[in-house]
């Protein structure tokens, strides 16, 4: 079964604090994407992770991928209010023949609220 699980699903943070969102997935892939969604808006691409050990950073966000553990993390450093949004990870799974399904399987999303 193609499954992607995020945790936590809800995250309330104080400004200035650090935290990590976890994304576990069920089977083979080395293509994982992180998206941000603001209320009423579309999905905005944050990071594209295409290999084991990939690490990407943008501002206060850093994403990493461990394909052996089937785990990606999104780390938030010194959170600010502007980071409040819903964050999704999505995986492009491969079939038994090693071919991508060509469609994304999404996690449930993590609703992040940063307060003073």
């Amino acid at each position, binding site marked *: 079964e193609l499954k992607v699980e995020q945790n936590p699903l809800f995250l309330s943070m104080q400004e200035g604090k650090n935290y990590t969102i976890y994304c576990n997935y069920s089977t083979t892939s080395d*293509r994982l994407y992180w998206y941000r969604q603001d209320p009423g808006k579309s999905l905005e691409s944050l990071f594209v992770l295409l290999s084991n050990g990939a690490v990407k950073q943008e501002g206060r966000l850093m994403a990493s991928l461990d394909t052996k553990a089937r785990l990606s993390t999104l780390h938030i450093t010194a959170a600010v209010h502007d980071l409040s949004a819903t964050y999704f990870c999505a995986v*492009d799974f491969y079939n038994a023949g090693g071919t991508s399904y060509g469609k*994304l399987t*999404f*996690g449930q999303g993590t609703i992040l609220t940063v307060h003073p």
Partner: protein
Amino acid sequence: GAGVSQSPRYKVAKRGRDVALRCDSISGHVTLYWYRQTLGQGSEVLTYSQSDAQRDKSGRPSGRFSAERPERSVSTLKIQRTEQGDSAVYLCASSSPGADQGDEQFFGPGTRLTVL
């Protein structure tokens, strides 16, 4: 350039009626996807098409959902005999297979469908 656009942004339909949702993708993108986003269940792919051919009607329930591609950069998602459970946000995305970012998908703003 212009991103992915969708219309209408909001749609209210009576149960049992058919609806059609439109997506205009990014010029030059080959693959168009339709996802359905609901609270608690996240986002799931409904259908996608590469070039002019529609492939894969995975998702639920098959048969009532179909996508047409009257032009290369236009897709129409058709939902027949709508049910209250079809109420959701329908997201369109497009990608280009030659992209460096692993077939990164770009999303439209979504159409919020409410079935009464």
